[in-house]
Structures are given as C-alpha cells and as structure tokens.
C-alpha cells in the first residue's frame, strides 16, 4: 500500500465521520424543531404558522440529493410529529406520508437544478409549503373524512412567511455544515 492509497483511505474515513456528524446534528436539529413546534406557540401564540420540521425536511432534500435518504428523513420527521398529535383526530402516518413525499420531491429537484440560489430556495420552500398543506388537507378529507376548512389566502400568507424564515435558516444551516466539515477534517 503506497502513500496515496493511505491518504485516500484516511480521507474516506474522515468523510464518513463527517457525514455521520452532520446527520446526527440534523437529527438533533429536527427534534429541536419538533419540540419548538409543540412549545413555541405557548410562548408566542402568533408563531403557530411556523413549520420548522417541514423546512428542515426541505433543506435535507435540497442539500443531500439522495432521494431515498430524503424520503426516509421526511418519514421520520412526519412520524415524530404524528406521535405528538391528538390520537382521535390524527392517526399516525398523516404527516409521515406528506413529509415523505416532500423529502422525495425536494431531493428530486436538487438532482436536476442548482438549488444553491437563494431565490430558487425561496420559491421551492413556498411551493413545498403549499404542497404539504394541500396534501394534508386532501388526506384528512379523503382518508379520515374530516371536514377541515381550507383557507387559500391563509395558506399563501403562511407559505410566504415560512419561505421568508427558510432563507436565513438555510444560510445558518449551510454555515453549520461548512464549519462542521472543517472541524471534522481538522
């Protein structure tokens, strides 16, 4: 084994650790986002529109262009959210399915387009918020036969607000990713 192959193996090992570190960090962030979704409206009631778990699912899909990883991540986030919802109104799987689809489609988009651009991210977040809200509403009506009101104006406003939050959040996550990679390599 020569020196170059040694370097290659060492780098691969570091990369593996780096990716594990990132995934672990993302899982922690996701749990934090879910806790915030449960708890933040208690402190600031006007933040009930904030969909941090959804934004993280979209971010994961955009940053890791791996459809299987993204859909599994989306399913994990959605099922965690389902578990904290009222059992009689919201069986487990409602958010799971919607976020699985969001993760898959986000990864699909990132495989075909350059999603580093802030404007594209803004548009994608807005689109995925609408998609998520519509899917969820459809599923509640079709699968659970629940007459849930659908207010397009409210959905559009919330979508815009979530997109606005997504931009700085994604930048922050990008920075964390870069600093994480540096610390892992060092």
């Amino acid at each position: 084994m020569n020196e170059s192959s040694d370097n290659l193996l060492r780098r691969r090992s570091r990369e593996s650790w780096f990716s594990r570190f990132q995934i672990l960090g993302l899982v922690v962030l996701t749990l934090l986002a879910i806790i915030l979704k449960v708890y933040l409206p208690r402190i600031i009631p006007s933040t009930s529109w904030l969909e941090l778990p959804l934004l993280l699912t979209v971010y994961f899909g955009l940053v890791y262009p791996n459809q299987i990883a993204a859909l599994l991540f989306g399913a994990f986030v959605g099922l965690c959210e389902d578990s904290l919802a009222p059992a009689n109104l919201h069986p487990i799987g409602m958010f799971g399915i919607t976020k699985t689809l969001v993760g898959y489609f986000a990864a699909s988009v990132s495989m075909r387009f350059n999603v580093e651009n802030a404007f594209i991210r803004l548009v994608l977040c807005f689109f995925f918020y609408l998609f998520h809200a519509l899917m969820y509403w459809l599923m509640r009506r079709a699968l659970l036969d629940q007459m849930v009101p659908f207010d397009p104006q409210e959905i559009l406003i919330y979508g815009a607000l979530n997109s606005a939050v997504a931009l700085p959040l994604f930048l922050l996550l990008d920075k964390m990713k870069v600093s994480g990679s540096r610390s892992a390599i060092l």
Partner: protein
Amino acid sequence: METILTRYRNLTVLLIVVVAQLVFLAYQVKANKDDRLIRVWAVSAVTPMAGGVDSVRHNTLGFLQDYFILLDVRDQNRRLKAENDKLRMENIYLRNEMANSADAHALMVFQEKTPSKTVAARVVGNSTVATAKAVFIDRGSTSGIEKGMAVVTPEGVVGKVIAVYPLVSQVLLITDPTFKIGVESQKHHVHGILNCGVGHCIVEQVQDEDKLDVGEWFFTSGEDRLFPRGFPVGTVISSQPGAPGQGMRDVKLALSGQPGGAEAVLVVLEGVHQEIPSGPVMADVHVAPLPLPPGQKDGNSSSVEQVQTEADKIVGKYEALGKEENHVYGEVGSSVPNFNPPKTTPAPAAAPVPQSSAPQAAAPVPVTPAAQAPPPAPLPLGSPRRKTTTTATTTEAPAPPGRQP
C-alpha cells in the same frame, strides 16, 4: 422484474414507505385503535424538555422583572446592604414563586370552593397539528388522570382529556371543531349544545321560542356526562331567530375563559353536579377604575377643548372676541367684529377677574377664593387645558371616585 426494481429503486422505496404508512393509517382508522407505544415514546421524550423550557422561561422572566424592580431598592438602601441582600434574595424567591403560582393560587381558591375533586396542572405544550386545538398538561396517569375527564379553570371550561401518559396528558380544547358540550342558560334555563369549532362559539339546538337575553350566562348542564353541571361557560353576545323554516335560534356566545391561553388548569377527577347560581357570576363583578389624577381630564369629556398649538390660542382668542361682540362666525348679516379691541390692563391680584375680559389663553387657575387668584400667565404647550366656556379660569375638579369611564 429485478431490473425494473433496480432501475426504479428510489421510486420503489418511496412507494413502499408510503404504502406502509397508508396501511398503518388504515389499520388505525378501521380498528379505531391507536399505536400507543409510539405515542408514549414520543410524548415521554418531548414533554419533559418542553416542561424544562417552560420552567426556565418562568424563572428567567421572573428573575429579570425582579432585577429591574430591585435596582432602586438597592440604591436607596445601600447602608443596609447586609440586611438588604438577605431581603432581596427572599424577595426574588418569593416573587418568582408568585409569578409561577399566580394562576395556581386562583386555582387553589377555586379548588377549595368547588365540590368536585380536582387536580391542578400546568399547560406545557401545544399539539403539532395547527387545526387541532389540543395542549399537553404536566399531569398524567400517575396523578390519577383518566381519559375523558373534564378540564376547567375558575373562569370557565377548557376541554377534556383525550390521551393519558404516565407524566403528561393531552387535552382537547373546547375550541376544537370536533368538541361539543351541553350548556344551560342561567336565567331562562335554556338548554343547548356549545360548538366553538366554527371560528366563534354558538349554542346549537336552541328553539326559536326559547327566550334568551344578551349578557345572560351559560353554564355546563351536565348532560354531556363530561362536565359537571354548574361550571361557567360564557355569556350571550347575540340571540337572533335563525333561518326561516329551521325553527332554531342563532345564539352566539363569548367564552368566559381562555381555553387556548390558560397556563394552569384543573382536571376534574370526580365531578359533582352543582346548582346553577342565581346571582351574579364571578366574572360579572366589575372593578371600577381609579379616578383620574387631579388636573387630568377624561378623554371622553367633550366640553373641554385642548389647546395644543399657537393656532389654537388664536382661535380661542377670536372665539372670545366673537362672543364678546355678539358675532357669529359664518352667519350672513352678522356685523364684522373688531379684532383689535383696546388693550385692557391686567386686573390686580386681589380683584376678581372679569370673565368677559379674561384672555382665553390664560393658564388655568386653581379653584381658590378670588382674592388669592394669581394673575393670568401664558399657557405652555402641553400643559393642562382650560375650557373655552365661561368656566375657563377655573380648574376642573377631579373626577369623582368610582366614576365609570
């Protein structure tokens, strides 16, 4: 087949994951059975953190408030530092306790009064579903809570327990679209079903012939076998005949409590039905605001004109001139007033000031005997104002105590 699966591997995994969740969903809906284990894990993992965050928030806010309050006290009592430190620490502790237990105290008083057996709980989190109005409370099966128990506050009803975990429970609020309770009015004993899931609260199943007054209280009727009879619910804000042919009255209700904003609640472990009180309800008691400080006028008082600028002074001056010369501005045929009347010398301090010649821009003079009246002085901007009527030179008496705004 294998080639297809390999080629469309991602899509296949997506289908498998979605179909698996759909099957699980269908199983839950069909069997009306919930996977309790997953929920117990998730709730047990999340709610302690939420409770911790809530405690930190309470203590931090209380500490910050106390810090600012106590800054002055420390400056004033520098010489008694040793004693003050001790008092301050005690004060911080007690104030924190007060801040945390302000609601708890109200609940305690209510708990002693109500014959039902209750347990106090704190709201620690919301539901993840925005449309579902549900919250988590920090009491679970270990505190004797069971599914279906009523949740109330001294102000009114809150909801019912829909899921119980060892340390926490989930409460469905009465504002949820799927939740309805039986109610009865205080005066006319009209029965109905409260529904708050339509954006506002309405009482359904009230016949057109039934009589209801605006402001009349509604209480729980106990007919839903959930809430004991006699808990306050809210007051009627409108009662109108419904659509023709339906025979039902359109009754809107304002809830007396704030189900979504409640920080501390009571879970009714053993409900005892009570009589609906015939007298005023606790929330009916109106506390009159304190009277205004002397020299300040009520904003509703229309007889007082506020002089804000120099232009106001000039307007006042010309109005006084017009009155003096019996001239009505804008009236056809009215004589032209003399805007340059001969200057009158200021009245001596001992002499009473003639109202007709008093400059309108004079400062308000306190209500004192005329002999002590100070000479008129220019009015500074933003100072207390005077009337432009004949009582211009007297200060308004303070509003009587207990006056309603």
